[in-house]
């Protein structure tokens, strides 16, 4: 290992520009002749638009255009497409309603865009937006999941009876029935996974520029996925050939899933730019973000666990309602199906599983992938259920888990819900985490807390996730309408610098450093001589962006594949220079060497020869040293681990303080330990946020009650402790780096550990259930209710 290669905590190359205030985020860009867009959005969750009067807005100072759904229709723009097709268990396709970029006829959630005002200043656009007069005939709304499935609920879409988008299942019902028939005990749980808003700190923005002279479009946008945005713009929404479309996602201030999707505003600024002949920029404010960015989670499930007399798991049966919102966002149908139900085996050896998932339309903004996407919902359900089983069976929750974990000699392990885990060691991470939190010392800490009048609890979660969603053939069979490979191009320059073009996208994950480390390790070049380029469809062969912790496992593997080609081509050049057979040349530590001799050529000499081919095998090898590769994985990767959380509750106020968090994950081979720890920290904060503070709440009429940071409680520095993060490595067996993925482990493993800790703390006062978020009020009320019941 070099000091900057794989395994080194290299300080990040990208930090300098961010620290100097020189990052270039989408809203920082002002194009020549820039204009500004403001949207008029529905104040109602469900209504018929009876009239739109734009005259006053159009007559306002500095206004260039006011556009409505009628203009969208007249210009033939396509609706925002959904990227996954899920079939119901009867074989029918999901209900896939239209999603016009500006509402046509009806609005279906608060924030649904109705009109777009373009003016020469932001202030003028905002003022004029207030002058657009929209008449609505308000309809009853089906806003909350439980309300939308009730008998007689209003329909979000006429074509979706019962508001059902699809009714899907997985697993073997007969096998599961047989397992339950043999059970000594059945444990049942009813859990809700609370709806949350992703809250990247940078609000979404889009700046569209149409060049009349060349008939080309450029979109600057806050995207995790610029090539997919270009693909959808080209094929579905703007309907322009891709060679005329450039999508640039410059520095992006966090994503967490909410910036994967193709949003209407991205289409509309390009279209509006064509109409007004000037670049058009829209920047969301935070309140608009709460109303329009896709939300996450929002499941309601009932699950049953069958166990034998010894506590061995026999079977699992799950029924889930998943909220889709009013429209189907890009990945939405995949989240509660292929990313959720396929993870219901968790890290456990389950002989039988059957799960049914009903996806439900509601009059709310779309629900789609958010950090972990489906995996947190599976982990939360399972880990709450296993903890409940331990309590009902009188077993230690650690030991019950240990008894049922998949053993190291059981890999590869075929689950009952489609996935095959390639490798793992769940006992090792369990032991590491227990040692880190001093599990043995917990009873003394609990007693000490009790002496201070505090209730102390320890919560555990053992979890698994699936990252690097793939391979393309499998996801295609499962309903994906795009491939899920990754592309890379490695360009070695004549004097030794290297530029890597990757189809993944960094919005905080540190790719510019981690990917450079791969080059440094493999080619022996200095890390300062490597530049990583991402986020621009004109510069990069292709890409599928960054989400689902896929960047290193899929994108990094594509880079490695391109590097293999570079090394091989260099070998041919070196063999010529060294007057040896190619088969006798090896590449190691940055040098080509004739095996067993001291005859060497440094990588830099070979690169130079490739571009200055004076003494060169020109008949058999092309000049230049640049290679591209596309990598399509054989399988998902499966990180897993144990999260332990210790809390203290003040029974007088209901405040839950997280006093300690110790986690041990197996994320595969670690390229940059500092960055891996940082990713785990961020996920933990979001997991604790969901468990204790955060919830996106709609009232029965579909008004969002938590539409700003005044009412949506984000985790702050004082809400969190330091985190103890450990790792145990088993290398992924099917990608060349052995990596698995880390970005989501905290958000997946942590929430059930927090709630299990809260319930452990509250057990002595008789509280047996707690939903997320465990706010002080909710905890206090639970304590009071238990006291009354006692």
């Amino acid at each position, binding site marked *: 290992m070099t000091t900057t290669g794989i395994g080194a905590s290299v300080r990040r190359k990208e930090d300098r520009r961010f*620290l100097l205030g020189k990052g270039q985020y989408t809203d920082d860009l002002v194009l020549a002749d820039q204009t500004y867009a403001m949207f008029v959005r529905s104040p109602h969750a469900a209504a018929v638009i009876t009239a739109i009067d734009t005259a006053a807005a159009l007559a306002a100072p500095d206004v260039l255009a006011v556009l409505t759904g009628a203009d969208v229709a007249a210009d033939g723009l396509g609706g925002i497409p959904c990227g996954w097709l899920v079939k119901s268990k009867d074989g029918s396709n999901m209900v896939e309603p239209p999603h016009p970029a500006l509402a046509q006829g009806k609005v279906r959630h608060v924030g649904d865009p109705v009109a777009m005002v373009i003016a020469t200043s932001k202030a003028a656009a905002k003022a004029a937006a207030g002058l657009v007069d929209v008449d609505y005939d308000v309809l009853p709304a089906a806003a909350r999941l439980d309300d939308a499935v009730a008998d007689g609920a209003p329909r979000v879409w006429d074509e979706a009876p019962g508001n059902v988008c699809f009714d899907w299942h997985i697993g073997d019902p007969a096998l599961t029935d047989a397992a339950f028939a043999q059970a000594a005990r059945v444990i049942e749980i009813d859990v809700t996974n609370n709806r949350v808003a992703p809250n990247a700190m940078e609000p979404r923005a889009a700046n569209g520029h149409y060049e009349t002279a060349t008939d080309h479009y450029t979109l600057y946008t806050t995207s995790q996925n610029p090539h997919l945005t270009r693909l959808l713009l080209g094929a579905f929404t703007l309907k322009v050939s891709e060679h005329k479309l450039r999508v640039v996602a410059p520095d992006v*201030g966090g994503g967490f899933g909410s910036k994967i999707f193709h949003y209407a505003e991205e289409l509309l600024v390009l279209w509006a730019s064509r109409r007004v002949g000037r670049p058009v920029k829209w920047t969301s*404010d*935070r309140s608009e973000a709460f109303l329009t960015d896709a939300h996450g989670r929002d499941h309601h499930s009932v699950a049953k666990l069958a166990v034998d007399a010894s506590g061995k798991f026999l079977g699992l049966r799950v029924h889930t309602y998943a909220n889709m919102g009013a429209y189907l966002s890009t990945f939405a149908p995949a989240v509660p199906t292929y990313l959720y139900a396929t993870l219901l085996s968790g890290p456990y050896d389950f002989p039988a599983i059957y799960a049914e998932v009903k996806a439900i339309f509601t009059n709310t903004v779309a629900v789609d992938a958010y950090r972990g996407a489906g995996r947190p919902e599976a982990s939360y359900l399972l880990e709450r259920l296993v903890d409940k089983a331990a309590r009902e069976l009188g077993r230690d929750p650690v030991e019950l888990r240990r008894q049922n974990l998949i053993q190291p000699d059981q890999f590869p392990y075929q689950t009952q819900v489609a996935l095959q885990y390639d490798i793992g060691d769940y006992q090792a991470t369990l032991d590491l985490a227990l040692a880190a939190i001093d599990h043995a010392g917990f009873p003394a800490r609990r007693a000490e807390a009790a002496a201070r009048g505090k209730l102390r609890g320890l919560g555990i979660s053992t979890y698994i996730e699936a990252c690097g969603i793939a391979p393309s053939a499998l996801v295609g069979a499962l309903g994906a309408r795009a491939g899920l490979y990754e592309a890379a191009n490695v360009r070695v320059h004549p004097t030794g610098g290297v530029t890597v073009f990757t189809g993944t996208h960094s919005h905080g994950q540190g790719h510019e450093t981690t990917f450079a480390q791969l080059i440094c390790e493999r080619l022996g070049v200095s890390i300062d001589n490597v530049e990583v380029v991402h986020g621009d469809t004109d510069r990069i062969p292709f890409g599928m962006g960054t989400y689902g912790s896929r960047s290193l496992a899929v994108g990094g593997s594509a880079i490695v594949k391109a590097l293999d080609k570079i090394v091989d081509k260099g070998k041919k050049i070196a063999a010529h220079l060294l007057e040896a057979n190619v088969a006798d040349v090896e590449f190691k530590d940055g040098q080509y060497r004739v095996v067993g001799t001291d005859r060497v050529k440094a990588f830099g000499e070979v690169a130079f020869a490739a571009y200055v081919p004076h003494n060169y095998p020109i008949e058999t090898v092309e000049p230049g040293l640049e290679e591209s590769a596309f990598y399509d994985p054989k399988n998902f990767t499966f990180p897993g681990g144990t999260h332990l959380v210790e809390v203290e509750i003040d029974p007088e106020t209901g405040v839950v303080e997280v006093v300690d968090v110790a986690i041990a994950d197996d994320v595969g081979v670690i390229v940059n330990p500092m960055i891996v720890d940082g990713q785990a920290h961020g996920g933990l*904060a*979001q997991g604790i946020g969901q468990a204790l503070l955060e919830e996106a709440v709609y009232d029965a009429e579909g008004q969002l009650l938590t539409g700003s940071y*005044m009412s949506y409680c*984000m985790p*702050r*520095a004082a809400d969190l402790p330091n985190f103890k993060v450990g790792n145990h490595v088993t290398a992924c067996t099917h990608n060349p780096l052995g990596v698995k993925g880390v970005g989501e482990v905290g958000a997946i493993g942590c929430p059930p550990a927090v709630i299990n800790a809260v319930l452990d703390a509250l057990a002595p006062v008789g509280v047996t259930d707690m939903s997320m978020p465990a706010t002080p009020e909710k905890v206090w009320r639970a304590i009071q209710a238990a006291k009354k019941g006692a």
Partner: protein
Amino acid sequence: MATVTLKVNGKELTVDCAPRTLLVEALREHLRLTGTHVGCDTSQCGACVVHVDGRSVKSCTMLAVEADGAALTTIEGMAQGGELHPMQAAFKEHHGLQCGFCTPGMIMSSTDLCARSATTPTEGEVRHWLEGNLCRCTGYHNIVKAVRAGADGMRGGK
């Protein structure tokens, strides 16, 4: 229109703007100092913190005209002669940033805290002080470490 005279990062500058213009708008849109960010519309997130006459202020809570005559420091004014400010250096060393969007506000808030303190602030003091700055990436773990190291750095220590 109002004319506002400011000393920004050591330079005398004049901004002609509508009286309702927020200080953050004057910085970002009139002076093109885009290191100061806007992450919310309720003054909760702290991405827009700058120093006004040496004290940290959320520049979205102040009108540009209120800052008339003031000396401002923004993130662009922290590094001197190509050298990172000790707080900036500490954030890099301790991986106190990921996407970088909240970072300018974090640096400006933290340097004010550490300039006010005679000693290195405790972890609890740092966490309490940062209640007005939201970060969604780091979980604050490394930010807290960075701020304490930056405090040492500002006093010339290690």
